[in-house]
């Protein structure tokens, strides 16, 4: 089954931008492994894998603006 990775609420921050996409489709990831990094308020925030599995889809790219709740990645759990 596919697990959605969404951008969490970071507080009342201004613009949030994707600064690194660390995993691509087909990559195997462990639970808690870094998947992406976003930046807001001079802060790089690491988004981790909620569970182990294989990255199915990446829905954002570096430089893209995102909002809390946005779907970032899909991971197929095993």
């Amino acid at each position, binding site marked *: 089954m596919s697990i959605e990775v969404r951008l969490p*609420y970071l507080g009342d921050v201004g613009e949030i931008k994707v600064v690194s996409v660390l995993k691509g489709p087909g990559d195997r990831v462990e639970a808690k492994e870094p998947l992406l990094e976003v930046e807001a*308020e001079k*802060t*790089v925030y*690491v988004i981790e894998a909620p569970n182990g599995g294989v990255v199915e889809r990446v829905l954002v790219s570096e430089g893209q603006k995102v909002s809390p709740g946005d779907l970032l990645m899909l991971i197929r759990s095993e």
Partner: protein
Amino acid sequence: MRIIDLGLSRYLEALKVQRRVHREVVEDPSREAIIVTEHYPVYTIGKSGSMSNITNLEAARREGIEIVNIDRGGDVFYHGPGQLVVYPIISLEKHKLDVWSYVRLLEEAMIRTVGEFSIRASRLKGYPGVWVGRKKIGAIGLKIDSGVTLHGLALNVNTNLRHFDYIVACGLHGMGVTSMEAELGHRVDMGRVRSVLLDKLLELLGVEAVEAEG
């Protein structure tokens, strides 16, 4: 809260300490610590930074200023002796903080600290950090990994401001930098600033220093 005072440190050496403490805190939040240091002259380029914001590379080389690319948020910044650098390595969840409120807390600690020295500093909406007019006196750059913070704040106390002339600080054109020394017209006792800033920070975090390490 452990206070780890590194004295005058090389940026990358201090970064190793940060990462070690970060791993400890991810494992066990009771190991939280505040690292305090001053760095040897260095330009650090953050995740969204650009090398092109170091506008006078030749002067930087001539004066022996190191250049380091790092994983914090923000653009180019200068660290050097006379600037108080504080890296709290803490669990945001434990302190019921989010990114927004943590950045505001670090700003507040700096505003209150310079206030004790009769300097009126404030926030500038959309520009994290602490400002005296349109000049930045205190900067912030952070990383949150596994819910635990890395990097922190830098407050210009007696900083050599000339070293900011070779960069576009924070990637912001048309804004300046200042220091407590520049605002007051005399050098300021770094030991006193350090102690006031740590007090304000601990107070805002609602914790006490329990242990000191060299």
